[in-house]
């Protein structure tokens, strides 16, 4: 069942909307894009990826890991699972964004827009 209010799902789908990534790279990307403010722990991330894969929101493929020293040579026996967003996942992401913005508008009706929005309108 979809969980439109799940912020972690929204964040992970957003990150994968830009490019295919593997699990550890997703955690790093989230940290980088949030300037270190947000961290999704692996104990949450990997089961979430499993569920997203089960629900058809992401598709996964395995690829051999290539070592640093010989970029063209795969490291024997080591592989990574890469995730990419499916069309269904893109639709889900759009739903998330819509629901999120509707919530923000609702709250802003009470507390007023943030400083950034005020600067824009000024």
């Amino acid at each position, binding site marked *: 069942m*979809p969980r439109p209010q799940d912020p972690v799902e929204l964040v992970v789908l957003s990150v994968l909307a830009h490019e295919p990534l593997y699990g550890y790279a997703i955690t790093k990307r989230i940290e980088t894009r949030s300037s270190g403010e947000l961290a999704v722990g692996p104990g949450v991330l990997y089961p979430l990826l499993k569920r997203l894969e089960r629900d058809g929101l992401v598709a996964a493929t395995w690829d051999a890991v290539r070592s640093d020293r010989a970029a063209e040579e795969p490291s024997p026996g080591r592989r990574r699972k890469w995730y990419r967003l499916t069309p269904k996942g893109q639709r889900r992401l759009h739903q998330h964004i819509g629901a999120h913005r509707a919530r923000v508008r609702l709250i802003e009706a009470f507390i007023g827009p943030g400083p950034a929005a005020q600067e824009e309108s000024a």
Partner: protein
Amino acid sequence: MPSPPTAPQSQSPPSRSPSPRRHDPMPRDAVALWLESLIRAMRLPRREAIEIRDELEGHLRERVRDLMLAGRDEPEAVHAAIRELGDAALLAQRYQAASRPRRTMMKVGAIAVVALAGGLILSNLAPSLGGGWTVAGPRGSVFPADQASVADPLAEIRVSGTIEDTTLEHALEFLATAADRTLYVHWSELEDWGIDREIEIARVPLPDLSLADALDLINSEIRSDNALAARARGRLLEISTQEAFDARDRQLVAYDLSEAIEAGVDPHDVSISLMNLVEPDHWADNGGSIATASALGTKLFVSAPPRMHARIAWVLEQLTDDRESATDPRGASPRAALETRLVPLANAAAAEVATTIDHLLTPADGLERVSIAADPRSNTLIMTGPGDAIVRAKELVLVLDQPTQRRDADPSAKHEISLLRDRLATACSRQMRLIGALMITYAIDGDRWPERPSDLRTLAESQGLGFDIFIAPSDLSPEIIDDMNGHADGWAWADAHSSFEMCPGELYRSDSPILLEKTPVLPDRRLICFGDGHVEIVAAGAR
């Protein structure tokens, strides 16, 4: 899939670390042991378990390397990386839950045995209990069986034949044909549970079974427990998951706890008790996704499907009754006893009548203490309150359950709905449906909206509806909008909070799927519904 891009991180294994400790075997052993305990705890197919192990091993490898580059020594880095992943058994549970279609809820039908403060437990329901009334005895009470299993229309519909060597899609079509019903399958919801229309079904014999039993057999055949659920509404047979039906039927009810609080009961204890007593798996606080409860002041707000509300109301009644008995040594209640009554409706939709009645209950009417829930499957109202208030509420229900004039009864009739900006979308929808105009209302949750326009058309036609106007969720995808613009005279949509906005002509289309942001509000428009079912949107002042 094209080759993935080069990863931003390098992939040096921990063994290439700057200062490995030759005499400390702990790190590698710790990783191996942790992975082993994870795999053991997971009851997944071997191939799946190995994939998870490989993925997490890769994660640990990279995490250890990064921590060591940040200055930690290897054993410390390994322990930190494992600690981030958490307890192996807990992680295994999360993986288990995420790896397969989640199981649906327990079937309602078992007798709930509830022990409250006094610790009284009754294990059998007296066979003489009937009519849907709660029974309060000197030593305790039992949730009535016929309230637990409101008459299920699926049990009354019989099917015969054999389903053989076919797909799930065709099997369901066969079932609907055998039951002489029009079928509508919420495939998008089923697909969310990993149930595909192409699932193969070898053989399911149906020797004059009820529809409910036939569905159980199909569930068993596709090995998804009770994932498929059905609902009969008139001639329409809907198939989805029980969770989806429950989510759609959720009602927010405010329960008054003032008497319990006066008697010294902590409202938070009440909500915790409810979460333990009434279908515990479905509460958000217990990891479920169906029901939530919040105690605010003297009110307990509960969002849950109607069948849970019936149980919740009963539990709360027991709480109050229990307190009254405790404060009155003679056992005589100072107030009239609360009663519960089931009222099946013949014409109106139970959920709508429940909403209307709820709005009508005022202290002046003496009806304020009636709690009402609707069971859409049986189109039945479940009312709980003092006896006299119940009788008056039932009179009101019978008035609202009168047959309404349907479309084509009076083609020249004209009804105008004005002040649209001030009306709730659902109220507007209800008025339109009463006069037979098309109205299909979906919540903002896009997954409840048929993914394909053809599904929507099938749904509309199966309900005998026209195709003039839709209330759409505000986040429809551009593709669907594009396709559907060809079928409508005007558009209206409800936002997440049920305000009502509309514009004539084509639905505004942009590259953004978020219509609400892009669409101008046109407050000067009015919606006019005609008796033949068509709807016009006109400028204010026009006739």
